[in-house]
């Protein structure tokens, strides 16, 4: 079976003057359509750089990204990003923030009224339609991130890239939002790639967890399948043996093996 999204021998070397640091080394990964994949690793291991390369915001030094067998090396709405700090434009309302992307992506294919309906549809998906005329400064952090998700979804991306989307939120809001993202994934069948540093989050949400070794020259250390049936319920999983085993595997990788990598 051919891969939907393929990361092919990606290396990334940052050069500043004479000094150069190899951040990523030989990253190979294939993701199938509709899959939910998490990339987990300690901070500084280059996982955000990897996401930026997939998004096209950073260019890989060697290797490349293939989406449906076509190379992608510049940013575009087919790989919409949900940024960690939401990145909503503060001078636009919630509606206008989502509309900005919709107007560009569907400039030719949708009429004005259809675009308007599509924006509202996506705001409804994240339950933010009620705040459409509010500005980002007037809504909470969790709500901002919902709007960020709506903005990305509204571009009908082939792959949805989530860059630590819940990192800046408090635990309760985070749980709410994780459940929302799970429901959206269930319903829309998006292909999702998520960067995270939260083990529970990775196990709860993902079909596969990609564990990265510590940088510099971070590699993919291990890929773990999470064979849990969907829909998943947070409370039931707390005592589920498979869940606990997966969680244990990730923890072991992060807190035992990564030290080994660091010493090597």
């Amino acid at each position: 079976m051919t891969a939907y999204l393929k990361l092919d021998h990606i290396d990334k070397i940052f050069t500043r003057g004479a000094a150069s640091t190899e951040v990523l080394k030989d990253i190979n990964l294939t993701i199938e359509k509709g899959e939910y994949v998490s990339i987990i690793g300690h901070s500084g291991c280059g996982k955000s750089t990897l996401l930026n390369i997939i998004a096209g915001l950073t260019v890989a030094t060697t290797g490349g990204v293939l989406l449906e067998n076509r190379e992608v090396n510049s940013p575009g709405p087919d790989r919409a990003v949900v940024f960690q700090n939401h990145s909503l434009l503060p001078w636009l309302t919630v509606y206008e923030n989502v509309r900005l992307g919709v107007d560009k992506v569907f400039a030719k294919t949708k009429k004005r009224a259809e675009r308007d309906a599509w924006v509202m549809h996506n705001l409804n998906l994240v339950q933010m339609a009620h705040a459409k005329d509010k500005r980002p400064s007037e809504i909470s952090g969790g709500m901002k991130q919902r709007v960020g998700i709506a903005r990305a979804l509204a571009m009908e991306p082939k792959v949805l890239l989530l860059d630590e989307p819940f990192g800046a939120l408090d635990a309760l809001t985070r749980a709410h939002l994780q459940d929302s993202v799970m429901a959206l994934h269930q319903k829309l069948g998006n292909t999702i790639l998520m960067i995270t540093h939260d083990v529970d989050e990775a196990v709860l949400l993902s079909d596969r967890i990609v564990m990265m070794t510590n940088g510099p020259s971070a590699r993919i250390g291990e890929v773990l399948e999470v064979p849990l049936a969907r829909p998943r319920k947070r409370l039931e999983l707390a005592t589920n043996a498979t869940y606990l085993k997966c969680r244990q595997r990730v923890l072991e990788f992060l807190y035992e093996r990564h030290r080994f990598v660091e010493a090597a």
Partner: protein
Amino acid sequence: MNMPATKMDIETATPTGTAAPVVAMTPKRPPRRETYARMARETAVRVIPPLVVVALLMLIWELVCRRAGSALPPPSKVFKDTKELILDPFFDHGGIDKGLFWHLSASLQRVALGYSLSAIAGIALGVLVGQSVWAMRGLDPLFQVLRTIPPLAWLPLSLAAFRDGQPSAIFVIFITSIWPIIINTAVGVRNIPQDYRNVAAVVQLNPLEFFTKIMIPAAAPYIFTGLRIGIGLSWLAIVAAEMLIGGVGIGFFIWDAWNSSHISEIILALFYVGIIGFVLDRLIAGVGKIVTRGTALN
């Protein structure tokens, strides 16, 4: 590709009970009379102290300048001497013998023209310098030197170039007010968060859309800081420039009054100059407040 979402029921999208709680907030409005009373109190708090200070200063001035042989007139004499000018600002006896309204409006027209030009050119140059590293390296040192040249030092040169007072005065306004606009715009553009650039890249805004939808709103607070400093400087420069070029204008009115030893008229003119400078500053600040509403980071 078409999302299956469009065919599904929106209601089922949300796991039950996890929706962000929506509470309609309708703050209780206090009775109208209370609101007015509070507004009156707030106004009084802001207006009374300066009024008291002004009254005190006038009193001291009156006492100091009242004595016979005093070089400057006391406020009572200023008012008596300039009553006609105050009460009838619209007379026009031809030449430069006009009411203060005409002098001020001539000055304001020059400022409006010179300042508009410098706002347009300043924002354009500021965007260039903020956006392009090479433009900054090439132009910034030049700007840093040129901006220290005093406004009036430009006047002889511009008179030589334009051979006419009117365009020269406008040029002096332009060249005086453009530097803070350029520099602040450039800083604003350079400080556009990378996040906004990333958003623009993912959405694939073209350069023109990036300019109007991201750059200008994001840099607006900085741009307006520059515009506000600029309007103050142009009002400073026009009075000095007009003293030298002559003709109708508040600057030459002051110079003419000095030559005719009408000290009271000078004081009246200074009062108007101050008030108008203040109003111009507030005007730009007000426009800035409306335009940049919501731009502050959160």
